[in-house]
């Protein structure tokens, strides 16, 4: 079995790649890139993706995958908007988003765990269902968030940093620790490492898988609410690449698609590398098409540096 092993030391390497990018851009455009304005924007742009990618990290460590996150996000945002429009309560809206996301996640989990259907198919199916469902609810027209959500939570800051970024950072931190230090995290690794061994070891594999997918769904639901607050619209057409973005972040961060290894810290770095690249190139004024080319190349190079440091394996 070829398994890429992730040691703490190796997260350091991919972090070093990120640091090099940050330094390079700062040197090239000190007055634009390395400003608190720009760095805060970076953080705030990455915040919502961070939630999705953190959930995805758990799922991928169990050797699963979740393609449905974008659809669930949109569905939850739509459901929340409907509830908020009906009741006027932002809190109820938040609850709706989170619970709707959780419900979709649990559905994924049940189908994967009990139905033994490949996660890719399950979540591709629920992606279609949730997106289609959101479109049915809205008639295909983007809904707008209530103004006091968009102008409230959407713009609010603590210590100069957007509240949304704080929320995402806090949740990510909690889940990073939970993965590394708790029984829940341990079982997540065990299942991805060898599901049969975990089962024989007495881990309730099915229940755990359902929880993990539920968690990913819940985070997608919350992301839907935060995205609603931030952008003020449900974005029914805007989230079709969320899944790939999140998966890419997870894999860049050193989590193996074959399960069993990975960290949330790695994922955080994996979220920031493409965001920083894109931002840096935009500030440098690189044309969009070139950006696509260069971001692609740097991505491969970044992971290569990491991989190469993990020791040149024999041929």
């Amino acid at each position, binding site marked *: 079995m070829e398994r890429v092993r992730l040691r703490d030391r190796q997260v350091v390497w991919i972090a070093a790649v990120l640091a090099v990018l940050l330094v390079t851009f700062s040197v090239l455009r000190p007055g634009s890139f390395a400003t608190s304005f720009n760095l805060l924007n970076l953080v705030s742009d990455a915040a919502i993706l961070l939630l999705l990618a953190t959930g995805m990290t758990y799922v991928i460590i169990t050797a699963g995958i979740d393609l449905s996150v974008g659809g669930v996000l949109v569905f939850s945002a739509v459901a929340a908007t409907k509830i908020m429009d009906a009741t006027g309560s932002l809190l109820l809206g938040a609850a709706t988003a989170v619970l709707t996301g959780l419900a979709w996640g649990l559905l994924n989990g049940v189908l994967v765990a009990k139905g033994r259907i490949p996660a890719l198919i399950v979540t591709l199916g629920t992606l279609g269902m949730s997106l289609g469902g959101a479109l049915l609810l809205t008639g295909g027209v983007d809904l707008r968030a209530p103004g006091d959500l968009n102008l409230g939570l959407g713009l609010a800051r603590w210590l100069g940093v957007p509240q949304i970024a704080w929320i995402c950072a806090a949740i990510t931190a909690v889940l990073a620790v939970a993965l590394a230090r708790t029984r829940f995290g341990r079982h997540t690794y065990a299942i991805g490492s060898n599901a049969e061994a975990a089962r024989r070891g007495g881990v309730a594999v099915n229940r755990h898988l359902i929880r993990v997918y539920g968690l990913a769904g819940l985070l997608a639901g919350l992301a839907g609410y935060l995205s609603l607050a931030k952008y003020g619209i449900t974005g029914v057409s805007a989230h*079709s690449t969320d899944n790939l973005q999140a998966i890419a972040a997870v894999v860049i961060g050193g989590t193996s698609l074959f399960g069993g290894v990975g960290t949330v810290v790695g994922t955080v770095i994996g979220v920031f590398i493409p965001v920083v690249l894109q931002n840096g190139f935009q500030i440098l004024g690189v044309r969009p098409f070139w950006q696509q080319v260069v971001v692609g190349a740097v991505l491969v190079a970044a992971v290569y540096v990491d991989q190469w440091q993990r020791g040149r394996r024999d041929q």
Partner: protein
Amino acid sequence: GGTTTQSGPIKVTLIQGLAGEEFYETMACGAKAKAKELGVQLDVQGPQKFDPTLQTPIVNSVIASKPSAILIAPTDVKALIAPLTQAKQQDIKIILVDTVVDDPNIGLSRISSDNVKGGAAAAKALAEQIGDKGKALVISTDPGVSSVDARIKGFEEEIKANHPGISYLGVQYSHNDVSEASKIVNAALAKDPDLAGIFATNLNSATGAGSALQQAGKLDKVKMVGFDAGPAQVKQLQDGVVSALIAQLPGEIGAKGVEQAVAAVKGQPVTASIPTDSTIVTKQNLNTPEIQKVLYKAGC
């Protein structure tokens, strides 16, 4: 924002609604030509999808790079207000091109094309082509893309209001995929062999639909109206794949946008609102000079 004149070279950034689409590329061409003429520096940026969540980070990056002015085709009337307000606070002049935002305080000048009107024009063109009767289908990209939704809205309203003889079959979504569009038309032909007309709201939809019609040998029986007038669409028109095109004026929008931006930066008066029109292009009028002028340019 203030009206202080700026020293040093004027730097303008155009933020497209969607990078790599003919409409916006033509707009960029027009803007570039004008920028060259006026001796200002122009950068072009754009998201890979027509999507506010992708455009917002770009706006933020552009703000960080401190241009004198931003030309932007906002991808949403609300979502872009916040980042553009930030830009305004940094004393960057903002000119809205093609699309707009809901906040009247944003955009020293708005040079807009009216997609609802464009859709209505498409309905008129299609009605004329099919003799005001028969079944008509719309093929679009994805629901929730506001500019395209507006075209559909205009189309539907016009059909319902003025063309009772046309039975409207509704919209199918191709997800901007040619083979998907082809599949849709194939199924539509299987379901309604007497289909009379198609409105394809963008190039990829028209391409896929055209291919399906061609394969089925129904090009002459089913008339199609396309949107935008890039070289590829014009070729389709010449080949008889589509019978009419709705042309907007992206190049002109770009050029005017740069003009207004430069004026704003220099503290000269700007025009608050410049509407642009859409034109129906057919095989018959294609070679007239007025129409040749509105066709989109192939790269620059």
